C-alpha cells in the first residue's frame, strides 16, 4: 500500500520543495486541513490552534532539508511536529499527562498509516476541506457564521442578501458538509478507486 500513486506524488512535491522552498506552498495547501484539525481537536481553542499550526509549518519549512524519504509519509512527519508543538503548549499550561498518552498512541498510528489514510481519516479535516470547496457564497456564509462568529443579520448586510437568503445558503452548505462526512464506501468502482474511498478500507 505504501507505494501508492499518492505517496509517489507526495514524494515528488517534497523533493521539489527541498530544491526550491518557494514550492512549499503546495505542501501547505495539501496538508493544512489535517494539521490544523489534528491540533484543534486537542486544544479546543481556535486561537491556540492557529498559533500552533503556524509554528508547525514554520518549523517544517525551516527543517525541510532534514526530512529524508524512508517510506514514512510527509504528513506523518508534519503530525509528529504538530504533536510536539501541542505537547509544548500543554506543558506550558500544565496539562501534560493527557498529552503523554496521546503521544504514544500517535507514534503507533503514524508509523503504520499511509498518506491517503492520514489525509482522510479525520472528520474535522474533511469538514474543513469541504468548506473550502463550497460555492463561494455558501463558503462565505459558513466562514462568517462559524469562524468569525457573525450574526445572520451582519452576514446579510455584508454580502448584500436578505436574512432569509443567508439562512437558506447556510442550510445548503451544511447539507453538503453533512454528506461529505457520511462515508460512502466505493459503491461502483470506476476503474481507479477514488481517493476518498481509500480512507477507511485502505
Amino acid at each position, binding site marked *: 500500500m505504501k507505494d501508492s500513486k499518492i505517496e509517489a506524488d507526495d514524494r515528488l512535491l517534497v523533493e521539489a520543495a527541498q530544491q526550491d522552498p518557494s514550492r512549499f506552498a503546495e505542501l501547505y495547501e495539501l496538508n493544512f486541513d489535517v494539521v490544523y484539525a489534528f491540533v484543534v481537536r486537542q486544544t479546543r481553542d481556535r486561537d491556540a490552534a492557529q498559533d500552533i499550526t503556524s509554528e508547525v509549518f514554520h518549523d517544517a519549512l525551516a527543517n525541510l532539508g532534514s526530512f529524508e524519504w524512508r517510506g514514512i509519509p510527509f504528513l506523518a512527519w508534519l503530525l509528529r511536529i504538530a504533536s510536539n508543538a501541542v505537547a509544548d503548549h500543554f506543558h506550558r499550561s500544565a496539562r501534560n499527562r493527557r498529552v503523554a498518552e496521546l503521544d504514544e498512541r500517535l507514534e503507533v498510528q503514524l508509523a503504520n498509516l499511509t498518506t491517503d489514510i492520514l489525509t482522510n481519516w479525520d472528520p474535522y479535516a474533511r469538514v474543513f476541506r469541504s468548506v473550502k470547496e463550497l460555492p463561494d457564497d455558501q463558503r462565505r456564509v459558513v466562514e462568517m457564521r*462559524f469562524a468569525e462568529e457573525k450574526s445572520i443579520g451582519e452576514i446579510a448586510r455584508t454580502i448584500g442578501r436578505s436574512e432569509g437568503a443567508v439562512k437558506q445558503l447556510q442550510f445548503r452548505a451544511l447539507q453538503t458538509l453533512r454528506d461529505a462526512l457520511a462515508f460512502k464506501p466505493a459503491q461502483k468502482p470506476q476503474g481507479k478507486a477514488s481517493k476518498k474511498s481509500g480512507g477507511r478500507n485502505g
Partner: protein
Amino acid sequence: MAKQNQFEQLDKLLDVILSRPRGSMPRVKGTLGTFARVFPPLLDLPSPDFRSRLKADLQRRALMASKPTVAREIRQTATAYLIVNNAAAAIEFYKNAFGAVEVMRLDGPGPRIGHAEIRVGNSSIYLADEFPEYGVRGPQSFGGSPVTINLEVEDVDAFAAKAVAAGATVARPIQDQFYGERSGKFADPFGYTWNISTHTEDLTGQEMQRRMDAMKQEGDPSSSAAPATPKVNFIRKGFTTLTPYLVLQDAAGAIDFLKSTFAAEEVFRDIGSAGGIHCEVRVGDSMMMIGGGGPAVSWKGESRPMPFHVYVKDTDAAYRRALDAGATTLYEPADMPYGERSSGVKDASGNFWYIATARGDSYKSLGAPTVQPYMHPRRAEPVMRFLKQAFGAVNLGQHADAEGVVHHATIAIGDSHLELGEAQGPYQPMPGMFYLYVPDADAMYRSALAAGATSLYEPNDMPYGDRVGGVKDPFGNEWCIATHFKDMTP
C-alpha cells in the same frame, strides 16, 4: 413552506450551539439530528484570514530561504545602506519610483524594519529603519545626506518622470552634460538624493577635462554668460512641500488659540493683497499659514475650517489648554488601539484638532510631522486618485474595514504628509486650502487641471518671491501651487 421552516429551525439550533460553552451539544432528533456530526468541526473552523496570512508568511520565509542564485549573479563589492525614517514606506516608494524589487526584509525589533534588501536594475541596495537608541539615524535627523546615489538607466527622461509621479522632487532638472551623459538630480521623500543618468557619448577623460576647462572660462563671473538669476530652492526656506492654509473670519483668534494650545510660534504677519491677515506660524517642526479677518482688518469672507492631526508631548494637558482657550470637546483623551493616546477638540473657528501622543520612543508616530492636515471626503478613492494624478501623491498605507470604508490613510506629497478618513458621524467633509511648493508651478498647475481641477487663477510671479497658480479640486479643496524663485529679506 416546509423548506422555509427547515432553514429557520437549523438557524435557531445554530444560535443555541454557538451561544453554549464549547463542547456541550444539545440533543437533536429528526432531520436536524443528521447534522450533529458537522457542528463540532465547524465550531473550530479556522479563520479564512489565518489560512491565507500563514501562507503568505511561509512564502515570504521560503523566498528568503531560496538559494541565492539571482543574488550571486549580481553580487557587488560596494552596496549603499540607506537608513530612513519609515523603511516600509521607503521600500514602497522605491518600488513605485524606481521599479525596485523587494528581495528580503527582517521585521523588528519592534514595529521597525531591522534590515531589508531591494534591487534596482542590477544593483542591490540595503535599507533599515532609524534606531536612534543604537546611534543609527537617517538623513532627516541630520538635515540631509551629503551622499548622492547614481542610477544609470536606459532612458533618463522616462525613468525620472515615473519617479516624480511617485513623489520624488526635482533637485536639478534633466539636461545634457558635458561629460557625455544626460542626467538630473532628484530628491526622495526620505532625505536621499539620486542622480539619474543615461550615457549619451563615449568620451576620453582628456576630452571631458577640455570641455570642463572651456566651461569654466565661459562661466567666469566677469563673463556675460553667467546665469541671470541665482538659483534658489523651489521650496521657500523653512517650509516643506505642503502647508495647510487656514482661511478664517477670526484669523487673529485662531492664531492666539494655536499659541496657547500648541505653543505655536508666530514667524510672520502682515496684511495681504486681499486686505486680510496673512500669518505664518510654526508648530513643532511644521508650518501653517493662517489668513482672514481680525480686529481692525477690512477682510470679509467665508471661514474654511479644516481638521488636523497634531502630535504633542502630553495629550491630556494640551486638551485642557484647548478647552481653556475656548474649544469644545469632540472626544476626551483616551488610549487608542493604534498606539496613540488621542483627544479631539473643535476650536471657536470650527477647526477640528485631533491631539495625539504616540506611545513608544517618541511622542510622534514614526516619520510623521507635528501637524498633519486631515481630509474627510465622502469617498477616499477618488481623492487619492486625484492627488496621485495631479501632484504625484503616494499612498503610504491605509486601513479599511470589511465593508471597504477607509478609516485612515496616510498620503505623501513630496516631503509632506496628509491624512484622510472617510466622512462619518460628526466628521464631515471640510474642504480646505493648501499651499503646495513644487519644482515647476506651471507644469503642476496644468497637471492638476488635467486631473480634474478647475482654475482659480493662472500661475503668476508674486511680489513675495513665489510664482503661484490656484486651482480648486473636484472635492472643494483649493490649492495654491507655488514655485519659490527669489528669496526676499523679511
